[in-house]
């Protein structure tokens, strides 16, 4: 379904040691995080906090690296693609795992921005703008009733994206 594409040169050197700051390589990522910091409001981006929130809210099913298993779709190396197609940016927030998470809008925005760069930086659009809390709040107020149908549609759109 997906055409393999050469990865962009963004490092994914996240530390897995408890209590240590996540090390991110690549200027793009750093800039993106800075942007998220600026746009995300008072909370900014705290990679440790984002990672622990990922553990507590997502990892149980999506696995530590977002690889997916059984009927849990793979996010690693893929989820960034959603942000390239119409409706996809909303979709990533509107899926129940995101929309229903017991996190406020700022914390959810921080988690998603961190996660996208951590597990799917290569698939993000060139002009990726981090989510803001306000934006996340708007999207999550419209939960999806049929996740699988919407996902299938978006994945088809992604498959038809022109190769870069």
């Amino acid at each position, binding site marked *: 379904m997906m055409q393999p594409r050469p990865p962009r040169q963004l490092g994914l050197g996240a530390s897995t040691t*408890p*209590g240590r700051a996540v090390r991110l390589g690549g200027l793009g990522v750093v800039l993106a995080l800075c942007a998220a910091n600026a746009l995300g409001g008072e909370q900014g981006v705290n990679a440790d906090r984002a990672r*622990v929130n990922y553990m*507590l809210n997502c990892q*149980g099913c999506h696995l530590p690296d977002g690889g997916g298993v059984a009927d*849990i779709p793979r996010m690693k190396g893929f989820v960034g693609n959603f942000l390239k197609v119409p409706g996809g940016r909303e979709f990533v927030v509107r899926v129940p795992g995101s929309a229903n998470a017991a996190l406020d809008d700022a914390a959810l925005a921080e988690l998603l921005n961190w996660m996208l760069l951590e597990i799917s930086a290569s698939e993000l659009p060139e002009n990726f703008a981090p989510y803001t809390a306000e934006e996340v709040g708007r999207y999550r107020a419209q939960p999806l009733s049929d996740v699988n149908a919407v996902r299938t549609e978006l994945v088809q759109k992604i498959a038809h994206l022109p190769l870069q």
Partner: protein
Amino acid sequence: MNWWIRPVGGLDKLTERSARGLARRSSRRGWLKALGGALAGCAAMPLLPVARAQSQGGMTQGVPETGDPESCDYWRYCAIDGFLCSCCGGSPNSCPPGTEMSPITWIGTCQNPADGKSYVVSYNDCCGRTTCGQCLCQRNEGDRPIYRPQLSNDINWCLGTQSTIYHCSTARVIALGLE
């Protein structure tokens, strides 16, 4: 808070039983014994020396340890519901021989009395053997109803494994918690 050591009618006998360490054998009355072990331990059981805890194997590097991994009151088990893998041939962070650890699980936080810090704990089940039946524990700090599955210990988490048959539960420390 131990319900069975309160002066509730008819519980003297149970208190006596629960004070003995308990939860070491499977039996028809295992639930009670296990519950006794879980909660009586909080108040009454002396903490084992760190050396004993570490000799069990399965400890996590960089995490100071105290307590008995074969007892329900061990700090990592603050929201465990099921049979301790430590009593089934495994350890707090590894499965007994021949079983398969579930990749899908739920994750909570527990406070470590050795350093007062909270740690993120992943309660992966071990699967593919008949019910272990040893050291039944039920503790529920942070446990939530099953409509919040990522926080629920009522679920058989043998999912994404070859076999969905539940054998025992681990409590892997995967990160330092948020303060």
